[in-house]
C-alpha cells in the first residue's frame, strides 16, 4: 500500500519521534515500498490459523518470590540524563497540566 506523508507523520507522532520535513518525505517513499512488499501476505490463506506470538510452548514461567540484592539508589540513578536527577529521584517535567 502506498502511503502519504500524513500517515508517516501520524505514526511518528504515536511513536513520539520528531521528524524533519525531509525525513517525512524520504520515509514516506521508503515505507511505501516496504508496505507494498508485505502486502503479499494477503495471498496466504490464514482462515483457520491461530497467530503465533512466540514459538515457546508456555507463556507463564514462575519462580519463588525471594528477596535478592538489587541496585542501590545511586546505581539506579547513575545514568540519569543531565539535569534529570533530583536527590533520590529522577526529575521529569510536569505531566499533568494545570487547569487554566
Amino acid at each position, binding site marked *: 500500500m502506498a*502511503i502519504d506523508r500524513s*500517515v*508517516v507523520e*501520524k*505514526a*511518528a*507522532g*504515536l*511513536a*513520539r*519521534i*520528531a*521528524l*524533519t520535513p525531509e*525525513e517525512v518525505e*524520504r*520515509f514516506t517513499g*521508503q*515505507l511505501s*515500498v*516496504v*508496505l507494498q*512488499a*508485505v*502486502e*503479499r*501476505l*494477503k495471498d*496466504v490463506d*490464514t482462515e483457520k*490459523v*491461530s*497467530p*503465533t*506470538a*512466540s*514459538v*515457546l*510452548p*508456555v507463556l*507463564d*514461567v514462575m*519462580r519463588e518470590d525471594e528477596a535478592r540484592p538489587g*541496585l542501590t539508589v545511586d*546505581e*539506579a540513578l*547513575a*545514568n*540519569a*540524563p*543531565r*539535569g*534529570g536527577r533530583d536527590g533520590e529521584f*529522577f526529575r*521529569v*517535567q*510536569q*505531566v499533568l497540566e494545570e487547569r487554566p
Partner: protein
Amino acid sequence: MELPRSIRDAAELLRSRRASAVELAEAALARAHADRHNAWLHLCDEHARTQAGAADGMLKSGGAPVLTGIPWACKDIIGTKAIPTTAGSRILEQYVPPYSATVVERLDSRGAVMIGKTNLDEFAMGSSNENSAFGPVKNPWRLERVPGGSSGGSAVAVAAGEVLFALGTDTGGSIRQPAALCGVVGMKPTYGRVPRWGVVAFASSLDQVGPFTNTVEDAAIVCEAIFGKDPNDTTMVADFPNDDLRTDLEKGVKGLRLGVPKEYFSIKGMEPGVERAVREALAVLEREGAKLEEVSLSLTDHGLAVYYIIQPAEASSNLARYDGVRYGLRVEGPNLLETYKRTRGKGFGAEVKRRMILGTYALSAGYYDAYYVKAQKVRTLIKAEYDRVFEEVDALVTPTSPTVAFAIGAKVNDPLAMYLNDIFTLPVNISGLPGISLPCGLSEGLPVGLQVIANSYQERTMFRVAAAYERATPHHLARPEVKAA
C-alpha cells in the same frame, strides 16, 4: 604476536605454559588497537589485564575451564557492568550499565578475558553495519565492502584475528550473515536456550545471543558456556543439559538425511558464485555419506514480509523505554511530550526511526489485524512447514546469504534491497530454530557462507553436520590479509 588459530589451540598453549593469559590478552589488545575496520567502539585494556591476571591464577591452580584466559569481544548491545554499552546509538552514547548480562557473567566466571565492545548497526537494526551512529565497519577482505550486520564488529574482530571469539545477537540473521560475509563461523541458538538478561531488547520473540568463532568446535565450546536456564529470563522454559554439545562433532554425516530446500535456490538476486559454492558444499556432504533430499519450504518468500511486520512491531514497543527520563540522551522541550519527541528524533538514526514508524503503524488501530495479526498467523504456517520438514530430515543445508559482501553505500537508500540480505536467515528466527553459518569457499575473492539449520534444541546435530563439512574442506582456514593501521 599472532593469536592462535582456535580456542582449542589457545587452551593448549596456555596449559603447556608456552603463553600466559596476560600475553594472549596483550596480543589481542595490540591487534585490536591497530584495527582499521572500525570494528571496536570501546577497548577496555585495564579490565582485560585484570581478567587475564586472574585467569593465569586459575590456570596455575589447575582444573580451569577451556575458556579461561581466552580473549573475546562483546557486541555493544550486550550489557557490561561499568563498561559503556551504546547499542550503536547516540541515545545510549553515555550509558554505563550498573550490571552485566548473564552471558557476560558466565564468561567472566569461566575466566574468559573481554577485550572490548564491538561496533554494530544501531540497536542491531541492519545487515551492513552502516547504521551505526559511530560509523560503518569495513570488511577485512576488502575495505570498501560491508562486513554484514548487525554484528559486523564482532565478525570482523574474529576474522581479522583480533580475538578468538566474539558474542553477537541474531534477530533475523545478525550473527550468521556477517559471519558469512567475513568468512568465519557464526551461530544462532534455539530460541530460549541462551539468557537475554542484560541484553538490550530489540524484537523479543526473535532475539538470541550467539558466538562468532574460527571453527565449529569453538562455537560449540562457547555455547556450552552460555547456554542454560536463567531465573531472570522468563523466555527460557526448557532446561536441557548443555555440556554435551561437542559429543557428536566427530561422528560424520554418514547416514544423515540432509534437506535441501528448493526455494532457497530459486530466489531472485542470488549470485551465481554463491550458488556454485553452496552446491559444491552439498556435493562434499554427499561424498561424506549424507543422503541429500530436496524438500519444499513454500513460504520462504513470505518470511521477509512476516519478519518486517513482527520485528518492527516488537521493536517499537521495546524502544519506547528510550524517553530521556531514566537514562540516555535527553533533549528538553517546552513540555514532556515535546521532550520525548525531540529526544527520540535526535537520538535515533534513520533506520531505527523507519522501523519505529513501520512498527507503530502495523500496531495502530485499524491496521493491527491486517498487518500484525496476519503476520503472526503466517508465522504459524512457516513454523509448521519447518516442523513437517524435520519429520523427514535431520538438518537443512542452505546458503546463508544470497550475495557476498557488497560495497559500502550500495544499498543504504533502498531499505527493501537491504532487507533481502536476510531472506535465508530470518525464517530460522521466525521458527525459533538453531542455525550456523560456516565458510564454504570464495566467490570473486570474497567469502561465501553455508548455513546448517536443525530442529529446535538439536544443536548437536547442527554442529555434527557443520563439523563434518569443515573437516572435509580447507575453507575455514582462509583468512584475509590484514594490514595494521
